[in-house]
């Protein structure tokens, strides 16, 4: 049955889900903008973030929302190591090599997760369970909290990019890495920082995802394609684009699930991807595509 309040609820839930995707997509978008690198293993970083938050909240008995910080730091360290050991070696060679490296990483991340946490699905137990009901629309406190946390993280990212030295260095590198090098910017350092930052965002997204949805080691592939659809929708390398794209995508996903059935909610990412690529390849906010 399609009812007005059901539809409104679907929209609200879509916005909440969209917030998590925004975080993931922003990480992917920053990495792409600065390094011109597409990390296909980004969804696996989300999965690792979810598991790190899960383990810290279980083992240390921490509040699930404090565990998000652990997830960010943990996944940032993984990102740091991965950039140093793998992506740095193939950066600037053939584009296909970067895809191959990401695929190798997908296999490694997924199976390390299986070894450490088993092949069952898990969920982080929330510290603020319960549902807020208002005028026939109900939403869990977790989803509301997720919206707030994403807003805070995004604001700090924007501040970091605009106000700090490393943020400016990142912008310079994204515009023209050769010239940035000439201006005395250590581009390699910027790269590794960017990758770790993008990974940390994926880690935070993972922790939030793990509080709202159950997850398993094989979760990774779909979030990557969703994040990819979002940054294409919003325009490559643009943070406002990722925000708008993420919200639109989140709404499209839950609405498709509500109107057409759950099985379509995942397929919508692909339909959207094709649609945008055919109609407007530069996205809603994109300048020129690279």
């Amino acid at each position, binding site marked *: 049955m399609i009812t007005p309040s059901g539809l409104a609820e679907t929209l609200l839930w879509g916005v909440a889900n969209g917030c998590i995707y925004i975080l993931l997509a922003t990480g992917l978008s920053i990495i792409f903008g600065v390094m011109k690198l*597409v990390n*296909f293993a980004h969804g696996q970083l989300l999965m690792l973030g979810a598991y790190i938050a899960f383990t810290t909240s279980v083992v240390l008995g921490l509040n699930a929302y404090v565990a998000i910080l652990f997830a960010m730091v943990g996944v940032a360290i993984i990102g740091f190591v991965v950039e140093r050991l*793998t992506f740095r*070696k*193939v950066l600037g*060679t*053939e*584009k*296909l*090599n*970067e*895809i*191959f*490296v990401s*695929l*190798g*990483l*997908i*296999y*490694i991340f*997924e*199976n*390390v997760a*299986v*070894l*450490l*946490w*088993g*092949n069952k699905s898990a969920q982080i137990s929330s510290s603020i369970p319960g549902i807020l009901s208002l005028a026939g629309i109900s939403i869990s406190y977790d989803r509301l909290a997720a919206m707030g946390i994403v807003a805070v993280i995004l604001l700090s990212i924007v501040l970091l990019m605009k106000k700090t030295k490393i943020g400016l260095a990142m912008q310079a590198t994204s515009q023209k890495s050769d010239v940035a090098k000439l201006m005395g910017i250590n581009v390699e350092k910027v790269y590794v920082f960017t990758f770790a930052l993008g990974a940390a965002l994926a880690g935070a997204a993972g922790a939030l995802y793990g509080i709202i949805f159950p997850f398993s080691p094989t979760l990774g*592939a*779909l979030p990557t*394609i969703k994040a*990819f*659809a979002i940054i*294409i929708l919003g325009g490559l390398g643009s943070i406002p684009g990722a925000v708008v794209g993420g919200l639109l995508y989140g709404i499209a996903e839950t609405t498709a699930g509500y109107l057409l059935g759950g*099985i*379509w909610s*995942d*397929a919508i*990412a*692909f*339909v959207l*991807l*094709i649609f945008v*690529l*055919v109609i407007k390849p530069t996205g809603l906010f994109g300048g020129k*595509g*690279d």
Partner: protein
Amino acid sequence: MTNMARYTKSFSLRLLCSKQFIFVIVGLVFIAVLPLIIDSEYVISEVLAPMLIFAIYASSWNLLACSGQGSLGHAAFLGIGGFTSALLAIKIGVPPLLGLFFGGLFSAAIGFLIGLTCVRLKAWFLGMVTFGFAVIALTLVSQFDSVIGGIMGFRTPLIVPRGIFFYYFTFAMAAISVLIIYLIMKSKLGLAFKAIRENELEAKMTGINTAKYRLVAFVLSTFFAGLAGGLYAQYIRYIDVSIFSPHFSFLPLMMAVIGGLGTISGPLIGSVIIVSIDAYLPRIDPLMQGFVGSLFPAVSNVGPPIRMMLLGIILLLVVIFAPKGIHSIIDRAYVYLMNKRAAVRQ
């Protein structure tokens, strides 16, 4: 004699005299007599036959990569080929052998449609679109389960009985497919693919219609992927939606890259390596469980995840340290040995 005929003649003459040609003949004879030497039902039908099938599949992926297009969703075409050939045989009684080709053709037709949207895309967009297509193929097949019956799966009607007959059948199919792919890659078409891969802009400037050639590569590649799908369904004797899973999309990529991207022998070498890993490494699972099992209490058998992880590590090592694959290592070793022998003679 026309130019074309002269070209063909000199080409075939060069081919006949070359060392490569002798290698190929020796290789073919070797594959043909292999089952007579080994004489083990298990090895013939569970190791050698899948090697041949995956050789076709990996070669099809490699053909696409030759034009600079890396598909991350080839499983969609493997699955379409498999389902089409099986369903045609079951539902309307098409002879299975004919169904195999129809599977390839239908896969190529879908490949044409997907290719239309893909040909103008950069490497990573293409990867994502193809990957997404595999996801949507899985969704569609599950959605129309009442017609297709893919979720539970069903038995596929066999063309030839299992064992030695099936081995020679796949051998013939693999030999013909690889030969055709070889001829394509050596032809003007293959040259255009390579030009596009090296530098699309320059290729365009020299008058190559890059979109057209990339679409041709897509259609050819998806045809062979569909063919391999039909054969794979024959090998498993069963087909269900799991054929669309990402692992099947990534396998041909790993085979081609590990063996040697853009070469004929690369996908074949990769197929031998990865199918061997799949077939033989499970034997040390109990041993591994005994050694490191206690470290990972979360899983009952540490074998499969460690094996999959190993695949990832091999892929990383090859891409970083030997970007031209094992093919290039063998080449170098061969040259080294030949030089050494020459030195000894002197």
